[in-house]
């Protein structure tokens, strides 16, 4: 099949769906790659590097749309592009079918199959083609860089000869892929990062990235929804919860220097979380990066695609093209996502596309196929996230409680020890009544030896357990003494038995010690 990537037509879009690297991989699947001339220029790939990778460079968009059987793109097709689609052609791109119904109808009418990269289901197997995540990752990174660009101070705290610099305090709202990427970038720059998300189960991920999770003490646990049910996305929250949340942000506003908001709810306008009064409460020179600007923004002041400055000098950045601002990186990742999609579409690696509608991933991402609209897809057979097990937070015991439990444990232990000692003592007494004196003498030795054994062995290090076994094994060959004591007996049978015992006990002793020495000689310090 011929796979073709046209130049993106929408204004300001610098990404490209095919990179020289991904082209090589796609060719391995048995496909042929085409690219419109200059398509990769904005992302840093010129035509020659494509040619070197074995890609045919086509002179015009028309020729490409004519020639390619599968068209791969970044943005959804424009009307004129949609008109170029033809029967049997496949289009792979971001499509946003829920928002673009007219476009969907048009594509269906043209008879093309459309695979929407934004509809790839969020299951483990499909992660490699989850372009939303890879783009969100870049957006999160870029948001921090953008914030640093607009922020007048260091991220990291320093003590220099010219004075002390406090670290920047960053608040990240919404810990999806973008939020987590932002947390990671900001912490590695040295900022103090706090993060909030309505899904309490992501607190672990937030903490693993090195940020502090702002925990809302919200009693109604029914409301804190289980993220796994909505496919790993957040869902709208109740008014009470929202109030609590805003109060928490209001508290943070005067303290933080940089706010990065990434809160989005699928299929709805972005929730307003950073209100005007919070902006007013912030220090002059603070920066707000609103990654939700395309959906209306999380901040009251956000203007999509604009950088505005509030009355008190707070900078609000509402760019919507963060991934495109890092076109090389995002093209590389997006092209890899596309390449993985093509790999799944070409299971035999023979250059033949097998549009398998029984496959969860392909079915989920396909929005039109064979003159039919196949959106929305049925729920996938595999759940996005394994059903989360309810985790009960254990209450920290108060110091008094701790003390009482400790005291109780101590008491119980004392009781048990005294009990064992009493029973042991009684047994000894009984034994002493019946046993001859010589036996009791030996018994004392035995008991003391057991005690010494227990004390000594606990100190042996784990790594030396095998040598320990070999040594104890060799030492237990002490049974040879028994045989030696008997070997001089007048009875022939006894002498023979004792002789055999001497033989095998000696094997044991010598073998045990030698092998231990061999082992210990191997232990070396670096």
């Amino acid at each position, binding site marked *: 099949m011929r796979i073709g990537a046209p130049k993106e037509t929408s204004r300001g879009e610098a990404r490209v769906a095919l990179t020289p690297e991904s082209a090589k991989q796609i060719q391995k699947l048995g496909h042929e790659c085409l690219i419109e001339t200059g398509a990769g220029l904005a992302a840093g790939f010129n035509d020659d590097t494509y040619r070197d990778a074995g890609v045919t460079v086509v002179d015009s968009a028309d020729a490409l749309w004519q020639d390619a059987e599968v068209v791969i793109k970044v943005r959804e097709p424009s009307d004129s592009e949609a008109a170029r689609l033809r029967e049997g052609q496949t289009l792979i791109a971001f499509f946003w079918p829920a928002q673009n119904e007219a476009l969907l109808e048009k594509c269906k009418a043209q008879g093309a199959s459309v695979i929407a990269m934004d509809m790839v289901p969020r299951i483990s197997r499909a992660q490699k083609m989850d372009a939303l995540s890879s783009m969100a990752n870049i957006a999160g990174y870029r948001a921090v860089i953008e914030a640093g660009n607009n922020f007048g101070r260091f991220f990291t705290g320093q003590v220099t000869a010219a004075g002390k610099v406090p670290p920047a305090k960053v608040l990240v709202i919404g810990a999806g892929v973008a939020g987590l990427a932002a947390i990671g970038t900001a912490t590695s720059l040295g900022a103090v990062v706090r993060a909030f998300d309505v899904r309490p189960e992501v607190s672990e991920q937030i903490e693993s990235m090195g940020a502090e999770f702002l925990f809302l003490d919200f009693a109604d646990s029914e409301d804190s929804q289980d993220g796994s049910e909505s496919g790993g996305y957040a869902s709208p929250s109740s008014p009470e919860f929202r109030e609590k949340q805003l109060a928490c942000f209001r508290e943070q506003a005067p303290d933080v220097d940089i706010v990065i908001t990434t809160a989005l709810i699928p299929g709805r306008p972005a929730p307003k979380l950073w209100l005007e009064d919070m902006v007013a409460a912030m220090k002059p020179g603070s920066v707000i990066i609103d990654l939700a600007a395309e959906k209306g923004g999380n901040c009251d002041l956000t203007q999509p695609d604009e950088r505005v400055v509030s009355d008190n000098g707070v900078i609000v950045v509402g760019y919507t093209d963060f991934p495109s601002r890092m076109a090389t990186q995002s093209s590389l990742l997006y092209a890899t996502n596309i390449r993985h999609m093509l790999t799944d579409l070409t299971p035999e690696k023979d250059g033949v596309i097998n549009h398998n509608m029984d496959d969860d991933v392909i079915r989920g991402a396909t929005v039109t196929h064979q003159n039919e609209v196949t959106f929305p897809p049925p729920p996938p057979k595999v759940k996005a996230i394994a059903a989360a097990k309810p985790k009960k937070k254990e209450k920290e015991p108060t110091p008094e409680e701790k003390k009482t439990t400790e005291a109780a444990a101590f008491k119980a232990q004392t009781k048990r020890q005294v009990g064992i000692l009493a029973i042991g003592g009684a047994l000894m007494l009984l034994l002493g009544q019946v046993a001859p004196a010589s036996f009791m003498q030996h018994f004392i030795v035995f008991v003391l030896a057991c005690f010494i054994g227990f004390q000594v062995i606990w100190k*042996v290090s784990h790594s030396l357990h095998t040598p320990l076994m070999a040594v104890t094994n060799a030492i237990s060959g002490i049974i040879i003494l028994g045989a030696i004591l008997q070997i001089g007996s007048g009875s022939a049978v006894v002498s023979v038995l004792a002789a055999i015992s001497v033989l095998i006990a000696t094997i044991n002793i010598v073998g045990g010690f030698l*092998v231990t020495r061999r082992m210990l000689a191997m232990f070396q310090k670096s």
Partner: protein
Amino acid sequence: MLGQGFVSAAAIAASVLFILSLGGLSNQEKAKRAVWYGIVGMAVAVFFTALGPGIGGYWWLIPMMIIGAGIGTYMAGKVEMTEMPQLVAALHSFVGLAAVFVAWSADLERRRVLAARAADGVMQEFSAFAALVATKAPDELTFLQIEVVLGIFIGAVTFTGSVIAFGKLAGKVDGKPRQLPGGHLLNAGAAVLSLLLAVLYLNGAGFWTLIVLAALAFFIGYHLIMGIGGADMPVVVSMLNSYSGWAAAAIGFTLGNDLLIVTGALVGSSGAILSYIMCKAMNRNFVNVILGGFGGSTGPAAEIEGEQVAIDAGGVASALNDADSVVIVPGYGMAVAQAQSAVSDLVRKLRAAGKNVRFGIHPVAGRLPGHMNVLLAEAKVPYDIVLEMDEINDDFTSTDVVIVIGSNDIVNPAAEEDPNSPIAGMPVLKVWEAKQVFICKRGQGTGYSGIENPLFFKENSRMFYGDARDSLNALLPLVD
């Protein structure tokens, strides 16, 4: 001939040396000296006992010791470090068998003395142990009989148990738990029968009782260990170690020899503690391990979702090249594949590149307590980068790459996450908290315990299929 005073002094010296020898194993450097304490202690004990009063029989003694020493040296020199568990098990069986023989002899001597007494009532000259028996009062002789019974029973169980453990570890006997119809009822029956025989013997029945007793105990040892699976062998071997000690102590009582008692008790408690540590590391009850098999699981195991994603050597190598901190978790599979030297080469290369490479060892990894440490030491991995589970478990969150080589259950997250799993509650190495986990494994399939491992399905896990040694050798040239 040396006097009794010399022998006693030697016994005290030997006891102290043995205690120092065991105590010295607390760290690797001291351990090298500690072995010498043990050797000297043993030499002192044997030499002075042999030269003690009324021993004799040197024409038997010396050749036997020379032959035994020869065989022992040969075995110790030839054994591969991966075969350590077998060797230890085999050596235990010798102690068990010797205990049985010595106890039998003791009873034969007792009978001889009694017969002589009954015959003429006059004390005739006895040599060796018989002379000691001749001085005993009747109640002391009764106790001697009890001690003989204990010595025979424990010794015999140790003998057959160790032989079977040896067979299982060496792969000569099928590793799966297997029992005769009747299961533990047979063991219980044999134990009850043994008790009956013991009572008969104490009431004056003939020597045959002791032979039958030994036979029954042989059966119990055989059947008990046959019923235990290969994965539980660390516990079994340390338990048998303990038994061999108790057998020696019992013989010590019989012969009235304090050195035997002390040493037996030391070995016995050492084995008992090791078994306890192993059981705790598997979160299982000692009785549960010995009586065989996993208990029935309490509910359906949580379903595992996702798929196992394979990766090739190139992928692993590039991840390793990017990583700063690497933890390697070896298991029995590494021993089977003889991959320790390949692992060592890899570690040397990674360390030369300035990466922080460490090993995480689970207490029950391998088939013998501390088995992995010995294998890694053999391959010249420095011991200060080989860490215990507790030392390394908190570091996984800050680890870039974990390589799991041939271990399965000890890295199974089900132990923590799934209360219905048969290994629920067992402490495990939390490798899944690292950024990436590569699992070096022969193929898909469950581990020794037959439990599905959700680790393999985690998003940050990649399966590196193939024989461990071949895979690592393929990996080596790609790492720089």
